């Protein structure tokens, strides 16, 4: 019920066009890349989705993360912009509840984007690699994995936005985190767990590694949730 309240709050903010626009833009990356480099892809080894993910996911993940950073800032800018958050804090609801409702909303937006991107990948795969019968299944698994990996980034970006009244500060921090993630070495497991670096990973061939990432992700989510709850409690104490 209160999740729908957060949905009402984003009316006329441009967030919905950003979801579909961002999703379509990211989906166009594999489509255009495949159209231009079809012969190169056909000579590569591996399944259709594995080739397409290897060649396109870095750019798509960057777009996804920039969307997350901008959207999280916007979600909290609607609260701080005209001081609506003061009214919300005088109502019988916890600020942490509002935070988690925004988290679920932004996660839902990411899911919509990943669905569009998955459709783009599947479209490219069907046209470039006809005869591969597992395209839709692989696309769904890859997008599901990618969706789960972006959740810590969503959580921490929302926390940064909640902490910064000035949207430009939170946006700046978000952009810095995204570009820092692109510079981290991909072969270092510990560094690859940075919340903004996780979404750049594609589903690994080794099951053990995938399981490691899932466990680490679970730990990051728990840490993030505890950090959020603690932050709102401490902020109230020192208000």
């Amino acid at each position, binding site marked *: *019920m*209160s999740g729908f*309240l957060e949905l*009402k*709050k984003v*009316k*006329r*903010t441009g967030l919905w066009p950003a979801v579909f626009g961002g999703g379509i833009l990211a989906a166009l990356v594999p489509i255009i890349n495949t159209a231009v480099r079809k012969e190169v892809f056909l000579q590569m080894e591996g399944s259709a989705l594995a080739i397409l993910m290897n060649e396109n996911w870095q750019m798509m993940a960057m777009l996804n993360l920039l969307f997350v950073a901008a959207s999280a800032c916007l979600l909290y800018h*609607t609260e701080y*912009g*005209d*001081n*609506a*958050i*003061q*009214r*919300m*804090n*005088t*109502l*019988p*609801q916890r600020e942490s509840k509002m935070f988690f409702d925004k988290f679920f909303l932004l996660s839902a937006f990411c899911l919509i984007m990943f669905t569009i991107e998955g459709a783009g990948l599947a479209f490219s795969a069907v046209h470039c690699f006809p005869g591969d019968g597992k395209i839709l299944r692989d696309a769904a698994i890859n997008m599901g994995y990618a969706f789960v990996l972006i959740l810590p980034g969503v959580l921490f970006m929302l926390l940064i936005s909640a902490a910064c009244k000035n949207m430009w500060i939170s946006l700046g921090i978000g952009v810095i985190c995204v570009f820092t993630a692109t510079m981290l070495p991909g072969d270092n497991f510990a560094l690859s767990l940075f919340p903004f670096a996780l979404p750049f990973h594609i589903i690994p061939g080794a099951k053990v590694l995938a399981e490691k990432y899932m466990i680490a992700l679970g730990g990051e989510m728990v840490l993030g949730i505890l950090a959020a709850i603690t932050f709102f409690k401490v902020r*109230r*104490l*020192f*208000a």
Partner: protein
Amino acid sequence: MNMIETKNLKKTYGDFTAVEGINLHIKKGSVYGFLGPNGAGKSTTMKMFLGLTKPTEGTFVIDGKKYPKNRMEILKEVGSFIEAPAFYGNLTGEENLDIVRKILGLPKYSVEEALDLVGLTQYKGRLARKYSLGMKQRLGLASALIGKPPILILDEPTNGLDPVGIHEIRTLIRSLPKKFNCTVLVSSHLLSEIELMAEDIGILNHGHLLFEGTLEELKNAARLKGFPTENLEDMFLAMIEEDNERGDSRR
């Protein structure tokens, strides 16, 4: 019976004391006028009641409920308007009130009712960021009044309104205890407004409660001290001046 009662309520920011050990007694079903110059501590006191800022020392009870233990129960009963209108600029007036309505679990007609009370029905479909200052003020009041809460905390509710608007809101506030069985704590620096609205008055200066009582008791206290008693403004200014002089000599 007191709806709001404070015991040595204090708020300090570092070495600055915004509110110094005040003991307020706001009777149930009355309009209590909170008077004081700018920076006296009125808004800070009201913010403490709403949990927007934590008291440094002291306690308060609202409708028998103690803060912070019963903070959520207190907020369910209190409608508030603090400092400046707070709203979602990207939503219409009606949509803004609908958000509050849903959080409070009120029926759908509460929105129309609140808009009607403050005279905003005609502009309910306009975006809040396109409202004039007076309309924003009315929206903030509607947000406080929605659902007719038993306690209203209003911080300078007539700011930015034209004389007709001031008269409307003043008449509305005066009628609330009888109409809706409501207790109102209203702050203002417009002494004439408080005189016309409030039954009891509290005068705050530099965080100290200089006086609390009825207008009649204020007149008697002023007469005993040799202050002018023709109108509230003269009494108020004389009390503030005396307190300022006392404060300067203390320093």
